[in-house]
């Protein structure tokens, strides 16, 4: 087990280093200059600005400064938001994004599993068809379309919920649902087929023959056995949810990290892009590592050989 964790940790560190370095060098390869937009600035001031941001040093020196700063948690100043450091922007934006992401994860897992279980227990009846419908809709409609649709129906036409922003609980309902729909759809589908597999097993017959109550059969024998393969699809969903926050935050004007990221890309704010990319990349890698380790604990078979499956 320790060997397994050490291996995962090593991979995670290597990957973070690759992500961080790739971000740095690719940003350098982009044609243009971070100060390109400052047209009215006289050359002398531009030169001073370059010095201020450290752009006058040779590339490898910039790279080592960048690595050192990252290791000590300093990510530099934003070019676009004057006098705001990337750290500040991340510190302000990330809690909101994390809150949105967690809400979506929780809603998605609960609703998805529930829908899958109910569908499997009512195989080929109304609930089953409903869950298949949700599953297909959820994987077929892009997040921003769902978000826009929700905004239009519940915000503009019915006026039940606020159209945008992130202030009260009512503000969080639509973004959370829009973000979690894909997860709900996928989990419902996986849980349904996994449950159907389990329901056909002999030990369910045995449990029935023993005279267990239906609730006990469903809870202790069916759900517990069916849920294990389903958990393994949650790992990739962390990445999908994080990507989703970019879109959902932009659509709903939520001041989270995702919205800043999309803006920084549009405004070519290099330090902000590098900083947030490195941050997101590291978060994802660490999350995946934790998920992998969790799988290793839950299911010992994964520890021995994951790739041969």
């Amino acid at each position: 087990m320790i060997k397994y964790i050490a291996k995962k940790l090593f991979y995670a560190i290597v990957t973070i280093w690759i992500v961080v370095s790739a971000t740095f060098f690719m940003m350098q390869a982009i044609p243009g200059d971070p100060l390109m937009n400052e047209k009215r600035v006289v050359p002398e001031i531009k030169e001073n600005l370059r010095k201020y941001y450290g752009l006058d040093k040779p590339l490898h020196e910039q790279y080592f400064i960048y690595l050192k700063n990252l290791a000590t948690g300093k990510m530099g100043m934003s070019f676009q938001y004057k006098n705001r450091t990337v750290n500040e922007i991340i510190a302000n934006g990330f809690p909101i994004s994390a809150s949105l992401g967690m809400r979506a994860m929780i809603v998605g897992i609960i609703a998805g599993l529930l829908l899958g279980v109910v569908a499997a227990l009512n195989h080929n009846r109304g609930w089953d068809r409903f869950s298949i419908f949700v599953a297909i809709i959820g994987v077929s409609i892009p997040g921003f379309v769902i978000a826009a649709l929700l905004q239009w129906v519940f915000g503009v036409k019915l006026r039940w919920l606020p159209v945008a922003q992130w202030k009260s609980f009512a503000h969080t309902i639509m973004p959370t649902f829009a973000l979690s729909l894909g997860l709900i759809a996928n989990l419902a589908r996986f849980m349904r087929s996994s449950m159907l597999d389990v329901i056909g097993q002999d030990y369910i017959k045995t449990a029935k023959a023993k005279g267990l109550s239906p609730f006990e059969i469903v809870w202790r024998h069916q759900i517990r056995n069916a849920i294990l393969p389903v958990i393994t699809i949650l790992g990739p969903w962390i990445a999908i949810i994080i990507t989703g926050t970019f879109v959902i935050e932009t659509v709903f004007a939520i001041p989270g990290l995702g919205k800043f990221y999309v803006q920084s890309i549009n405004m070519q704010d290099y330090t902000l892009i590098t900083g947030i990319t490195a941050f997101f990349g590291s978060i994802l890698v660490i999350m995946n590592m934790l998920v992998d380790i969790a799988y290793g604990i839950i299911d010992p078979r994964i520890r021995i050989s994951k790739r041969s499956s």
Partner: protein
Amino acid sequence: MEISREDFVYIGKNIQESQAIVRPSMTYLQDAWRRLKSNRAAFVALIILSILVAMAIVGPMMYSYSYSDQDLSMVDKAPGVGGHIFGTDSLGRDLFVRIWVGARISLFIGIAGAVIEFLIGVIYGGIAGYIGGYADEIMMRIVDILYTIPNLVVVILLIMVMGPGLHTIIIAIALTNWLGMARLVRGQTLQLREQEFVLAARTLGADGKRIIFKHLIPNAIGPIIVRLTFAIPGAIFTEAFLSFIGLGVPAPLASWGSLASAGQRTLTTYPWQIFFPALFISLAMLSFNIIGDGLRDALDPRLRK
């Protein structure tokens, strides 16, 4: 009830009859096609998709306007006004034409992305799985490390470096997606490689290339095709996402994603500008997903009845 001897008749054995082949012999693909046809949902999806593809080809030619023709006297018109079936956008461009031009771009990105992914994945995974041993170990370790790099980071960085454009998007999508395909193919190859027919082929003197391309890959084609069918909507989705964050195909070119994200901004005032692109993206996604599901069932020989 009385059972008497007279109720039974001795038929005897007819060896020829019992060994005759009752079912017509079918190739793998014929069999799969037969099963896919009997799946009503998949068949409808196939028809919808064919219509979308046909419209993508002829749609832009059905009008005298081109996708980039602006008419500032016809800005943001509702569907039907002035002969614009789907209305116009904020620059007075005809949305009907733009949607079918967008269909070309989106479908092209989807298919091209999937094909490149297929080629790289099959070659890489096939070689790793077939050679095995150290080569496999090293090749798969590389895949493992690349796999942990978040896709999105790579796609965004690549596009920022190469500049947004049709080819860039396809390359970025293919470069991030081939890993999954490589793993799939390698796993399949590893399994098949040990089977007797490969040994037989080798005994007959087939070389490595022939075994990979004539024996291993055709036998692994089922899961590969299924993955490809899901790769196409995946690529279209990624493109829509990129358009949304401002890294999509550059204007005045249009894709379903860029049309929908442009429409999203004017949602409250001109809802049809998002309605039509969203409708067609969803329809295409839906069809690809249903066909993928259908193919998965159809191509699985264990389900053969």
